[in-house]
């Protein structure tokens, strides 16, 4: 049993206060029981009989107050002790200003006249009202909330457009403004490449690859996933491009999205044609000729987009480590897999990462199943068994109803990793580990037990299971990148260096032809 004792020398509280204190202390999370009594011999005897007597209490005098704390399993007792002492202390210190919280945007702005951005993560039903108020207060808006109606999105974006403000989102997870990451973002070098992105992890991946290739990011503007639909008409992306064109700090622009609606794409190409700054377009699955016809630079993948932009931004190409595919590794892995192990199972937290990897594997194998497939024939439900090559986006709405996103809580995926390992037809399990602000502080630590279990299952069945992990992050992120990678490698996990390479390696490992 975990027990801590506090002794207050010659402390007299009246009995009613003692009761109130003990009620308060018993309310602290993790406290099983707090017993408060004067340090008399008799009371110490009782503590002894109930196994609660500690050294501190043994020395207590009848005029001393003994506070004996029993903690629940799994709580740090020192921490608990601190918390109990905290509630028992009368707060006397003047609160720091950071303790002040507000109940409305108006009130916050009244006290912080320099505020310029509102980050909104309230339930979807109220998000539009809050965003409207923020815009009217003259704030740029990043709306993390989702479940906002299309009409509201259009109205908000029109209002923001008229006011000359950003309206990033709804459902916008990533932005980097003036070098500071908002919501889910990685710590990357400052530079001259501006990004406008309709996808969260896609934007994270582009910014991280830019950093990796030696470039830097000026601004990263998120638009939310529906911005390039016909209804919304790309209001935010068009405003974003315009702002980056006018921004002195931006030399090169990257656009990242799924392919836009035709009408919207045309509008974007119009703008691109007139642009004085080079624009790299990565519309995952977009048509090369169409894009190049606008004068933009076509990039097939997020990695290629980053690479092109970094070279355009002036980083000498020969100094860049492009992380070209390790063909020897592919042969080694292929040799370890049995002919029966013909499938890839991709289990991802990042939506764009999942799409991009699936897209690259599909190019090679033709037929893949996914919970985010556009073709109903290839849709697979959350709880359905995998078949063939299966790619699951664990961040899809159908998984996250009422639960935190797997980037915050990777545990959602653990069971599935183990399950796939039991399937003798599986050769490769591909996973992502997303670092950066907003994400879990140790996604690898949270996932390792499942990885070990999966490896063990395969080993006991006498086969090799290739686990391929992509760690999306930089050495500047709050999680320690190298440590995350090393702990994976120590368990025999193969590390890929980008979303693109994850796709290429996966398909390489299970390809039939010898290269």
């Amino acid at each position: 049993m975990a027990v801590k004792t506090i002794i207050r020398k010659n402390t007299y509280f009246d009995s009613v206060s003692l009761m109130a204190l003990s009620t308060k202390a018993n309310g602290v999370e993790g406290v099983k029981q707090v017993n408060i009594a004067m340090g008399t011999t008799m009371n110490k005897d009782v503590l002894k009989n109930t196994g609660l007597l500690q050294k501190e209490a043994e020395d207590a005098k009848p005029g001393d107050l003994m506070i004996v704390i029993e903690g629940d399993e799994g709580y740090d007792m020192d921490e608990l002790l601190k918390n109990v002492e905290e509630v028992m202390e009368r707060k006397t210190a003047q609160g720091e200003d950071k303790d002040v919280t507000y109940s409305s945007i108006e009130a916050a702005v009244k006290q912080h006249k320099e505020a310029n951005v509102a980050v909104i993560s309230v339930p979807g039903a109220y998000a539009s009202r809050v965003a409207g108020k923020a815009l009217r207060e003259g704030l740029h808006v990043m709306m993390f909330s989702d479940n906002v109606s299309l009409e509201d999105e259009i109205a908000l974006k029109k209002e923001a457009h008229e006011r000359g403000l950003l309206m990033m989102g709804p459902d916008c997870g990533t932005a980097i403004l003036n070098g500071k990451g908002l919501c889910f973002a990685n710590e990357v070098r400052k530079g001259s490449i501006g990004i406008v992105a309709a996808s969260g992890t896609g934007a994270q991946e582009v910014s991280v690859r830019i950093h990796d290739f030696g470039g830097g990011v000026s601004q990263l503007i998120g638009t939310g996933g529906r911005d390039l639909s016909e209804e919304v008409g790309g209001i935010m992306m068009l405003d974003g491009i315009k702002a980056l064109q006018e921004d002195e700090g931006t030399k090169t622009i990257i656009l990242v999205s799924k392919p836009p609606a035709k009408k919207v794409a045309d509008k974007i190409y119009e703008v691109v044609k007139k642009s004085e700054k080079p624009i790299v377009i990565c519309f995952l699955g977009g048509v090369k000729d169409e894009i190049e016809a606008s004068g933009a630079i076509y990039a097939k993948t997020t990695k290629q987009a980053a690479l092109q932009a970094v070279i355009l931004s002036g980083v000498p190409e020969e100094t860049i480590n492009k992380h070209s595919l390790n063909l020897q590794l592919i042969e080694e892995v292929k040799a370890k897999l049995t002919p029966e192990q013909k499938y890839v199972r991709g289990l991802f937290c990042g939506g764009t990462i999942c799409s991009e990897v699936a897209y690259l594997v599909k190019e090679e194998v033709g037929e893949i199943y996914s919970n985010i497939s556009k073709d109903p024939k290839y849709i697979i439900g959350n709880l359905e068994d995998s078949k063939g090559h299966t790619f699951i986006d664990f961040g899809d709405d159908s998984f996250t109803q009422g639960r935190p996103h797997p980037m915050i809580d990777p545990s959602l995926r653990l069971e599935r990793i183990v399950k796939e390992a039991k399937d003798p037809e599986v050769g490769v399990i591909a996973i992502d580990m997303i670092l950066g602000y907003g994400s879990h502080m140790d996604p690898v630590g949270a996932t390792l037990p499942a990885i070990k279990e999966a490896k063990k299952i395969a080993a006991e069945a006498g086969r090799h299971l290739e686990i391929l992990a992509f760690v999306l992050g930089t050495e500047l992120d709050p999680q320690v990148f190298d440590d995350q990678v090393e702990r994976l490698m120590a368990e025999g996990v193969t590390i890929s260096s980008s979303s693109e390479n994850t796709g290429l390696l996966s398909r390489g490992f299970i390809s039939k032809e010898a290269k």
Partner: protein
Amino acid sequence: MNTINGLFKNELEVVNVGLEMFQADLSDQGVKVSQVNFLPPAEGDVEVLEALDYLDSPGIKEKIDLANKEVVEKIINSRPALVGFDQAINVIPGMKKNMIIHAGPPVEWKNMCGAMRGAVTGALVFEGLAKDIEDAERLAASGEIEFSPCHEHATVGSMAGVTSPSMYVHIVENKTYGNVSYTNLSEQLSKILRMGANDQSVIDRLIWMRDVLGPMLKEAMEIAGEIDLRLLLSQALHMGDECHNRNVAGTTILIQALTPYLVQTSFSTKDKVDVFNFVASSDYFSGPTWMALAKNAMDAAHNVEYSSVVTTMARNGYEFGVRVSGLEGNQWFTGPAQVVVGPLFAGFKAEDSGLDIGDSAITETYGIGGFAMSTAPAIVSLVGGTVNDSILTTKKMGEITVGENPNVTIPILNFLGIPTGIDIRKVLETGVLPLIDTAIAHKEPGIGMIGAGVVNPPMECFKKAALALRDRIKDLEK
């Protein structure tokens, strides 16, 4: 102008509404970030949300803002002065011989809480209309007695607020706008009529107040002329009173102002000594005076079309009622009276407490009391808080009010004016309810005060008021 490119050139400063993890991440990156704790506005009530959207719509919002500005100017510019004392029947508009006025919104005899029933029956005995309490209960139920809210007679009454024709009342005149307000005299100790006590000692005290205290105060004010109450209030706040639950300083400076005139009256020395001893027996002596001051300013601010500012918050132990400036006359918006949270006198338990009662919430409506908690650190322990909590409370009340009153200031907040003009829109948008300091009366008649604490109004009052304001403005816009 805050354009996108303007943003790129300036330092990022964020308002984070919702998930606190985003605030922490931004702070870690050295970004200045202020946190807004989100509550569903209007408790998520769809009809009220729509009404709020209407009140917030272009063209309407500006008119409301303008009206509210006018209302707050009226509150701030009001200069209430004590000009006299007299019997209720002689001065209170609409007062009748068979009328009893009471705290809060209208309430029928059958719905009155214990404290109010105790006070009503006590008052009937005091007036000689009933021979004893039992007889008074019969009379009160008979329909022969007319009940009416104090607030509808330019009057406020502390706790049960029961004021009968021959009781003496303060007369407070608004030197700026000319309106006059009234409130009865403090009975001082805890076993008193306004708390529902009604035994012989209570009646005897009322008789003495009618025959000695009231007439003496009346005569004194005839000599004095007038006393500027706003000035005294502002001094009292600087001396550590919030002028609702703490009145130590206010009573001292009020009696200091009255004394030269009291000693000049024609009463015997014994009577004068009795009066001074009576005043000295409780700090509450000036409590009603500040209520009359607040009522005087709030009445001047009532009836401004389009305004969403609350001009009355009052409770009768059965219901909590508010009135709003833009909803003229005596339109009450009510919800059930709430439980007061706070320490009780020794010997009483939580279940003995009556529900929230009294017109004294007029002080919070004006901006003192719970709104000015930070100026009275001596009593923050009464509400289980710290000095810092009280500062946060005053700041929080600033989030639901239109402006500050520069004439009544709080030293510890760098002489910030008290938060003034509760805006029902802000209450509903933020989910922050006004905080009211108050006393607790026993739920049964005949017992009296048993504690003190704090209470919030029910959200329902503000919801109903918002719907009515929407209807009223739609009519005006036709």
